[in-house]
């Protein structure tokens, strides 16, 4: 199909303003009817106007945190996420986390999670670093020798770290597995069934030697995202990732619905695209 340029060209001789000279259209069809990303602008601001006070603030903050965590999880699913965006989102999460730690609401969260979960460790850091480290490590391998001269030792150091982190994740996974089956809601079962299927699929297709290796290959993002989603439904029985669980408990029932909708919305968009 040949490509056509329509060039409509004029020049207006009136004073002092910009006139359209020329427009080049690089498409066969031009019809913006999609408003998918432009809508949904109102809800947040209306909510702000309707209610006031510290309660609203903490709910807002909570929903922002949830939203950010979902975004980070989705970044994590990509092989090569937009690093700038991931870093900015992760910093936002850190900021919220710090503030929540200061006013005490983070303590409540962490107390309810598993004891051995590393409290001092920022969840956002975990998520962000897990993906970018993998990426970098692989990326450096792909480069020609000329370019890897700088800080080769550091890379080795990082490779070790990655494997540490993977082990940690796999332990968490193993610990939490029994809990998964206690979930009673049908929908949630389906969610976890899916993630487990994914895990098993991965297991079958690999021929690695140790259990740790097997689990380190598993993409935990599916797992975490499910927890976020199900957590929103107000079910607090799930334990695995240290923070996400607690998130659901502090979120007020009234806000749960909106949050659920908005997360659904995001997921919908992603599924569709």
């Amino acid at each position, binding site marked *: 199909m*040949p*490509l056509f340029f*329509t*060039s*409509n*060209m*004029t*020049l207006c*001789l009136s*004073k002092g*303003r*910009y*006139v*359209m*000279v*020329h*427009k*080049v*259209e*690089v*498409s*066969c*069809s*031009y*019809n*913006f009817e*999609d*408003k998918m*990303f*432009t809508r*949904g*602008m109102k809800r*947040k*601001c209306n909510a702000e106007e309707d209610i006031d006070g510290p309660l609203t603030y903490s709910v807002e903050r909570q929903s*922002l945190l949830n*939203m950010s965590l979902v975004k980070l999880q989705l970044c994590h699913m990509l092989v*090569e996420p*937009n*690093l*700038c*965006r991931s*870093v*900015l989102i992760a*910093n*936002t999460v850190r*900021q919220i986390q710090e503030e929540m730690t200061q006013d005490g609401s983070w303590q409540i969260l962490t107390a309810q999670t598993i004891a051995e979960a590393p409290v001092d460790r920022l969840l956002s850091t975990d998520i962000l*670093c897990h993906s*970018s480290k993998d*990426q*970098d490590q692989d*990326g*450096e*391998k*792909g*480069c020609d020798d*000329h370019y890897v001269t*700088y800080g080769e030792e*550091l890379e080795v150091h*990082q490779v070790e770290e990655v494997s540490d982190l993977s082990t940690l994740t796999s332990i968490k996974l193993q610990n939490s597995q029994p809990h998964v089956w206690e979930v009673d809601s049908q929908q949630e079962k389906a969610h976890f069934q899916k993630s487990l299927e994914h895990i098993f699929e991965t297991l079958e297709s690999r021929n690695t030697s140790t259990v740790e290796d097997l689990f380190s290959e598993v993409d935990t993002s599916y797992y975490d995202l499910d927890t976020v989603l199900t957590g929103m439904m107000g079910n607090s029985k799930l334990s695995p990732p240290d923070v996400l669980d607690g998130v659901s408990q502090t979120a007020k029932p009234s806000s749960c619905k909106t949050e659920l909708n*908005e997360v659904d919305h995001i997921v919908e968009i992603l599924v569709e695209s």
Partner: protein
Amino acid sequence: MTGELKILGQKSQTRKILPFYLPFQIADIISTVEFNNTGELLATGDKGGRVVIFQREQESKNLPHRRGEYNVYSTFQSHEPEFDYLKSLEIEEKINKIRWLPQQNAAYFLLSTNDKTVKLWKVSERDKRPEGYNLKDEEGRLRDPCTITTLRVPVLRPMDLMVEATPRRVFSNAHTYHINSISVNSDYETYMSADDLRINLWNLEITNRSFNIVDIKPTNMEELTEVITAAEFHPHHCNTFVYSSSKGTIRLCDMRSSALCDKHSKLFEEPEDPSNRSFFSEIISSISDVKFNHSGRYIMTRDYLTVKVWDLNMENRPIETYQVHDYLRSKLCSLYENDCIFDKFECVWNGSDSVIMTGSYNNFFRMFDRNTKRDVTLEASRENSKPRAILKPRKVCVGGKRRKDEISVDSLDFSKKILHTAWHPSENIIAVAATNNLYIFQDKVN
């Protein structure tokens, strides 16, 4: 005057499968626009990896109103989609940036880059071809030596003008992250390419070696809180360059001080306004573009809501700040939710550095006159701008009452964004990329 031009160039063989809700070709979305140093040529790059070069029509006595028209000069496939087997990921063919090299002979040279690879292209005209070789016939086949009985001198014969684009250099394998900027140095021998965490310096002649001049990758990636968002060389001092970061800072580096410019010479940063503090403060202060003015005395930066002009001699605050779309400040949460807050708007100077231009949403773009402090919002859209028409200034209604001709903040279309614009180096001609359309506007003449 309406004409239809058929593009004879190559088309990308691989096209992405289109989601049902996108009626236009994703590959056609313009991702960069750049005038060459004389303004005679204008290059665009798109998501499909193509580069289209427009040439300005020569002034003609017969058709004086046609002056300023840009017509397609050459189009070629600069980058193809690739697959990185080691990382098992697709490398997009999208052209992130185009930079022209100053013209030194009859041919034109430009650098184009996607996420990973920079290419040097030569664009040249040919209107003559050699004829009468001794060993080859006109089709280029070798002649049977037995039939060669006389010697002749080959001659050049005129032929139809042909514009060829040939890749002269391919600079690959030096970037682990996504390249966001390239900048040709004023020595015209070197250029730099910047990705999220590193900046490399290249010689235009040498493709298998580059020098790492900035590396902000922390030894421990858990400590990563900042990335490089844009970088540019000083227009006259070949040892000086700046780069901006996601934390809203600009660093000026001097390559004479050390080989690895991890220590900046100057750090430009404005203290945060406590009254505007929110969880989005850092995101909206992230700089999406940085540009030296023509003299090299000032730097312009674009963040999400503003354009700022900095004096190289004053690091603690910008000398000018312009609000691009301050009415979005109350919408940040929604813009975060729909990811618009991460849009990377670019900014440009006019030829005399007296006006700056940058894009916004709803196909709006903004111009700020630095002397009179006046600003204008214009719209690049097919619906509202008939050829020959004067662009009407647009107004976004902020308060409660909406006047006629005003558009309310809630009805802005956030899918129509103007991220890339270019200004002719000496005249008041601007090029505005609105999704898959390129608009060229000209200031009135006479």
